[in-house]
């Protein structure tokens, strides 16, 4: 990498530039393409393997599938219940995201724009939750959910996801509501607009950019949860309520015994393609949403 230190002192600036112009970008691209391959090859490999026969997978991991075997996908979706897990994940995340955004926006709005006794205490109670590792709560949470009769149920998991998304959501949206101008709200109040209408028809639409960013962050946080579902979705009959992350790892364990490798790769591909596709469509929003989430 010490390409430029070797430049002889008597060489004029023109050649110096010409030299770097040729070599540096080439070396940069070599490294960058190298890492791009390291990132994408495993994913491509999983997709290709989902079309192979088990025999092809066993004989040569690097071979290409001889034909597109969609029945691997059908088997993963149906027999291995990936379809059901997918649906469960979608139900839980849709519900949890709705609750998170509504409750988060409500609390953040009040904390940002209204003065009342205890405002700071409530704010720190919410945001303080970001400091604790979720593992600390795991054991008591299991019993709280069990005592409410919500263990192994989709509504139980939905409420837990929403509750654990609140600290960051409240933190982020409180800061966002503070940045919105007060003049619009004052004008609306003068016109006789009530507190509730002001929130739903004036402030929420104004806060849309912030809401979208935090919603994407929460979507990924909830869709990718692993430890909460494996702790909370146990017990009798809970397999029917499993979410994708959990179902997929169970599939990986079971398929290992049964030797249905192609089914496993198909399940993996089904699980990863929708999020990857959504990301490719909205990659700017994904990246800024996640960066905002990490940089609070």
């Amino acid at each position, binding site marked *: 990498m010490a390409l430029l230190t070797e430049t002889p002192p008597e060489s004029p600036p023109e050649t110096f530039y010409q030299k770097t112009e040729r070599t540096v970008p080439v070396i940069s691209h070599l490294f960058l393409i190298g890492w791009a391959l390291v990132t994408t090859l495993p994913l491509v490999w999983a997709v290709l393997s989902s079309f192979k026969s088990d025999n092809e997978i066993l004989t040569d*991991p690097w071979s290409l599938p001889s034909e597109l075997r969609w029945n691997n996908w059908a088997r993963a979706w149906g027999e291995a219940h990936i379809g059901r897990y997918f649906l469960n994940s979608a139900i839980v995340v849709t519900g949890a995201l709705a609750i998170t955004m509504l409750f988060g926006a*409500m609390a953040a709005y009040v904390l940002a724009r209204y003065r009342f006794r205890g405002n700071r205490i409530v704010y720190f109670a919410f945001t303080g939750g970001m400091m604790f590792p979720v593992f600390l709560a795991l054991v008591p949470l299991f019993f709280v959910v069990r005592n409410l009769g919500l263990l192994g149920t989709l509504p139980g998991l939905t409420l837990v996801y929403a509750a654990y998304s609140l600290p960051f959501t409240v933190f982020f949206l409180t800061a966002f509501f503070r940045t919105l101008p007060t003049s619009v709200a004052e004008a609306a109040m003068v016109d006789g607009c009530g507190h509730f209408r002001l929130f739903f028809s004036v402030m929420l639409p104004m806060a849309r950019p912030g809401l979208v960013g935090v919603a994407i962050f929460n979507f990924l946080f909830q869709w990718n949860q692993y430890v909460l579902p494996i702790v909370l979705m146990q017990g009798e009959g809970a397999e029917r309520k499993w979410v994708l992350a959990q179902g997929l790892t169970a599939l990986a364990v079971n398929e290992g015994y049964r030797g249905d490798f192609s089914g496993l790769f198909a399940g993996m591909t089904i699980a990863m393609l929708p*999020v990857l596709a959504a990301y490719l469509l909205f990659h700017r929003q994904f990246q800024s949403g996640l960066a905002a989430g990490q940089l609070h």
Partner: protein
Amino acid sequence: MWGKRLFIAVFLIPPLLLYGIFVVSPYAQAFQISGTDWSGLSPAYEFVGLDNFRRLLGDGYFWTALKHNGLLLVLLPVATIVAGLFFASMISVGGRADRAGVHGVRGSGFYRVVYFFPQVLSVAIIGVLWKEMYAPHTGMINGFLRGIGLDGLAVAWLGDPRFSFWCVLAVLIWMNVGFYVVLFGAAMQSIPRDLYEAALLDGASRVTTLVRITVPLLWDTIQVAWVYLAIVAIDGFAIVQIITNGGPGSSSDVVGLRLYKTAFGDGQFGYASAIGVAMFFLTLTVAVMFLRATRRERVEL
């Protein structure tokens, strides 16, 4: 006035209830349960004071797991941040240099999009995928090694206690580097190009500009990155549980997995909560140490 109070109450009480039941109360109870010998089966339990913590001190499995978290805590941030800065620099200033300054490489948008892929995949998918990647006969890694004639290196990666931990570390680095390339890349946009141009004209190498210009000017961002990678390192549960389940033996065990197995495998809920409390104080200590260590003057432009 009542309208406003009613409004505040209606807007605050439902979120507070949800948060109080599922977040605040479990955290509070964790400290209480850690002082008991509760096994979860019966409501009966006894307070044993600090016995659980005393037991923790003599628990070899816990120390092994803690040692692995400690290693992750040092190696994961260092490797990820160095790789992230390296690739981000190549994207932002790795292109040609001319009179207009230093350019980024062509296709920088492409790299940013592709590098981010692992970030949007769930840990479960990444775990299962890499478990298959490392598989001795059907895995892509050994397939590659055999393909280039290195059959001797095609070992049972996850079945060998010498390699299992490093395999897990590699996956954690793989899944995190892309995000920090994007993050550092975005932060580097605010560094004026002519700084690099001037340094290169003075005969500095690209590596020197990275160490002397980029790192000091991105110091705040690097600190944040370190904090988040430290959180990943203290956790590490999902990837370890899926890929190796802590094994073989306890060669890749981490504290989170210890807690999970102690609670939901052995039913020792009191002891598991004590592990959770220990983890909490570990996190706190690391945070305080980090804040002490990185207090350093900011470079202002």
